[in-house]
């Protein structure tokens, strides 16, 4: 006991398939760790008993066919799960029990995975530190001088849970960096696939044109396996890409000889810590050592990505969140008439950051401001995408840091929305352009907090992204420094 939770997903599944480990033992080990890890506040809902009985069923009926057979997996509480409460970490969805299962999670269970529970996140995935959750912030398994650190966001419960071995792998969602930034903050791997690669059906929507589900795992191979499991065309999602099914794990290899890697000069930010610049430089030399060709490139509209994002994402969110009105599900406040009921419900049901974004989104779409803000942002979005289209004529992938800093202290940026938003400076452009990008753990800062490097690929070229990351992973030789201090 105890060692099972250290295994990677690929290893665990192969041991379950070969009956070296039973699905029940695997599940029990995770369950007992989860029970002892309440301090991290990673789970919003636990389904531990259910998980145990599902695991037993796998052993009893020898259901070892699936590529995730017996893998105990908790998922971000943004995925609707049948008969399991789904809240998006918001009070307004408290008590909502879907009668349906999201496409991505149903693929997990079809392939043999077992649901451990629902993971905490920023409310409606709006945040970069997991501090906007209605159920309290998640605590990073990494600690600095006894001070609690954020796990990143919005998939902060996911990142902390993988880093703390509370789930063998997980799926998060990424609208502006919500998979990659928390992955970087907790020393794990996180991949945002190409927009359209994974179905959005059944995922609580934040910004529909940007949202994308993706894996968060202990290493690159696990990431490839998870992507194999969750990707694919879904006729229930009109924006889902009708591409042929690929085999990412099978085609995973470290041969990146001759691969052209772009280094964008615009990603050198003013007050970026030196250790991040150094790590980036190291990444460049590791790439070279692996036989890749480094090319210095320009993405001139990079600086406009964040402002563009903070118009488009809130605009879509203001509309996507209009359905939370207290009528059909979730929380409802009283009111003397319909409008007062709506206003009270939404005012008490949403947290501050969500309200802020709804307000901004409503404003930029309102008559008289649409052209100046929303239309302008869509135009700049085109320019940002054009930047990438152009450089991808010359390079196969792009290497950047994942975030401009390491994880920060809880409460440090809470009162300054803009400084919080700046955390996503390197991740947001990728969502705007709809590209695939991975964050892999690449080292530590002086205080011992993990740092990540990001590899960005061409649309639907996750294989190159994964292969580059796989090559880099070997060079980096990252070892988790999580100390189980909370147990």
């Amino acid at each position, binding site marked *: 006991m105890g060692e099972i939770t250290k295994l990677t997903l690929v290893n665990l599944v192969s041991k379950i398939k070969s009956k070296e480990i039973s699905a029940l033992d695997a599940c029990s080990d995770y369950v007992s760790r989860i029970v002892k890890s309440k301090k991290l506040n990673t789970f919003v809902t636990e389904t531990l008993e259910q998980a145990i009985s599902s695991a037993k069923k796998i052993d009893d009926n020898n259901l070892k066919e699936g590529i995730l057979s017996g893998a105990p997996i908790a998922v971000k509480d943004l995925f609707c799960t049948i008969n399991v409460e789904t809240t998006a970490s918001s009070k307004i969805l408290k008590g909502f029990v*879907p009668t*349906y299962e999201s496409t991505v999670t149903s693929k997990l269970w079809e392939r043999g995975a077992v649901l451990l529970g629902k993971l905490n996140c920023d409310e409606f995935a709006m945040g970069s530190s997991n501090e906007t959750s209605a159920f309290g912030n998640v605590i990073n398994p990494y600690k600095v001088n006894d001070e609690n650190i954020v796990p990143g966001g919005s998939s902060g419960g996911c990142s902390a849970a993988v880093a703390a071995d509370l789930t063998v792998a997980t799926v998060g969602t990424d609208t502006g960096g919500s998979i990659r930034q928390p992955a970087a903050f907790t020393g794990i791997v996180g991949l945002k696939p190409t927009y359209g690669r994974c179905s959005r*059906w*059944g995922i609580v929507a934040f910004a529909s044109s940007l949202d994308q589900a993706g894996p968060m795992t202990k290493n690159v191979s696990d990431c490839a396996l998870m992507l194999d499991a969750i990707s694919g065309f879904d006729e229930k999602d009109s*924006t889902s890409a009708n591409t042929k099914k690929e085999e990412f794990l099978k085609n995973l290899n470290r041969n990146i000889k001759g691969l052209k890697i772009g280094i964008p000069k615009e990603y050198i930010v003013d007050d970026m810590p030196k250790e991040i610049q150094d790590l980036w430089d190291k990444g460049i030399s590791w790439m070279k050592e692996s036989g890749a060709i480094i090319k210095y490139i320009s993405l001139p509209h990079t600086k406009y990505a964040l402002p563009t994002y903070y118009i488009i994402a809130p605009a879509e969110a203001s509309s996507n969140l209009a*359905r939370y*009105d207290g*009528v059909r599900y979730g929380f409802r406040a009283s009111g003397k008439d319909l409008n007062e009921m709506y206003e009270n419900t939404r005012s008490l049901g949403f947290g501050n950051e969500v309200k802020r974004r709804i307000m901004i989104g409503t404003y930029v*779409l309102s008559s008289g401001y649409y052209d100046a803000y929303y239309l302008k942002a869509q135009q700049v979005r085109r320019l940002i995408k054009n930047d990438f289209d152009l450089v991808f004529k010359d390079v196969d992938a792009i290497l950047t840091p994942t975030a401009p800093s390491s994880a920060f202290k809880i409460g440090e940026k809470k009162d300054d929305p803009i400084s919080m938003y700046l955390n996503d400076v390197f991740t947001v452009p990728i969502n705007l352009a709809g590209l695939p990008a991975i964050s892999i753990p690449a080292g530590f800062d002086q205080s011992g907090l993990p740092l990540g490097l990001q590899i960005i690929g061409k649309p639907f070229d996750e294989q190159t992204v994964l292969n580059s990351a796989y090559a880099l992973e070997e060079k980096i030789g990252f070892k988790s420094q999580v100390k189980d201090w909370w147990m």
Partner: protein
Amino acid sequence: MADNKFDYYLDGKTGKWEVIIGLEVHAQVTSRAKLFSGSSTKFGSDPNTQVSLVDAAMPGMLPVINKFCIEQAVKTGLGLKAKINTFSKFDRKNYFYADLPQGYQISQFKFPIVGEGEIVLDMPYGTKVVGIERLHLEQDAGKSLHDQDPENSFVDLNRSGIALMEIVGKPDLRSPEEVGQYVKKLRSIMRYLNTCDGNMDEGSLRADVNVSVRKQGSQQLGTRCEIKNVNSIKFMQQAIEYEAKRQIDIIEDGGTINQETRLYDTKKNETRSMRSKEDAHDYRYFPDPDLLPLVLDSEFIENIKKTLPELPDEKKLRLMNDFGLSSYDASIIISEKDISEYYEDVAKNSDYKLAANWMIVELFGILNKEGKGIKDSPVSAVNLSKLINLIKNGTISGKIAKTVFEQMVQKNENPEVIIEKSGLKQQSDPKELEIIIDNIIKNNQDKVIEYKSGKIKLFSFFVGQAMKETAGKGNPQLINNILTKKLK
């Protein structure tokens, strides 16, 4: 004739006023499933039994468009002689309401699927062409019931997400009469196309009516008010009259019209400002990020074009040119798809002109009297065509035919059987008639002499005698011929 000149002007204290009307018609697309979900569109089911997760706006649900609804919209566009846009987009129209679960309606704002077209109206003062601004696809909302509980309203989402075509007409209409004709013609075109059943009492066809007034002769448009969701032609006409007069009174008293949304109260026959729409004017339209632009290729449009049935205007021309129907008769026959189909059924086995006459005079007389539509006609098309053939081939006279028709109305019986049973068959054997006529001549020698000496008016006396002898069943044409010959 006064009828032949347009003269709908309202009298105010300061003179005559012209009424300017434009309609936004919401027509339910005839389809099995909803626009963005697989729920049934059936009318009259139990509340909340035709609601998918998408229709109830459950978290994470996404719209997927129904191909057939796109075809229906294109078909309707072609029927309105309109431009089909090969590129169109779906936008979200954002507003909060209890029967709008998403908090937005998916509609088409900037790029509608159909552009400008037209509808031709037959008015007593001539044909009038009314412009169509655009046609776009959108979702219907659910239904709120306000009268079931003193404190609460109830929400039924069965209708939520059903495909609608919003057909926006130009402000070309000038009278309640024209509005009536416009709605009827539009409905008729859609029924010919099978794109909307047009059942107004089921809500399949409703209109927002925009009304403004201006002094007769003025070229400037006044401020308009929009009367929401009127669901019968009669109510539209009443609402327009009320609203126009209200606006005239305000202006003549020195006031100004507020551009606003109003509700027509059918019980009080008045319009009033809608409180619930106070801040509805900022809909924050933006492209729906859950959907992609709708791009139609020309082959798709051409294929639909090929399936278009003959439409009322073309049919009218054909009936006039090929069958010699009068413009008046033809426009009645084509006015409704069901009528024209009935007509075609009657005429194809009988006589085009007689069929039109008999339908318009006799059949519609009965239907009007009994308050029935052609679908419930007591006389089937087959039987009516038989009756017409009996007249045509001389088996019965026109006069007898009316008696037979009356009996047909009673129990939709085959006229041949009725004639057989009641012995109403026309006596058309020339030999028999000759014997009868010979007898009449023999018994009325004095009249024959008078006739031959020039009193030709007596001819009808002989005809009358012959009819009397044959109990009215003698073939009048034959009797005429024989008498003419014998009295020479």
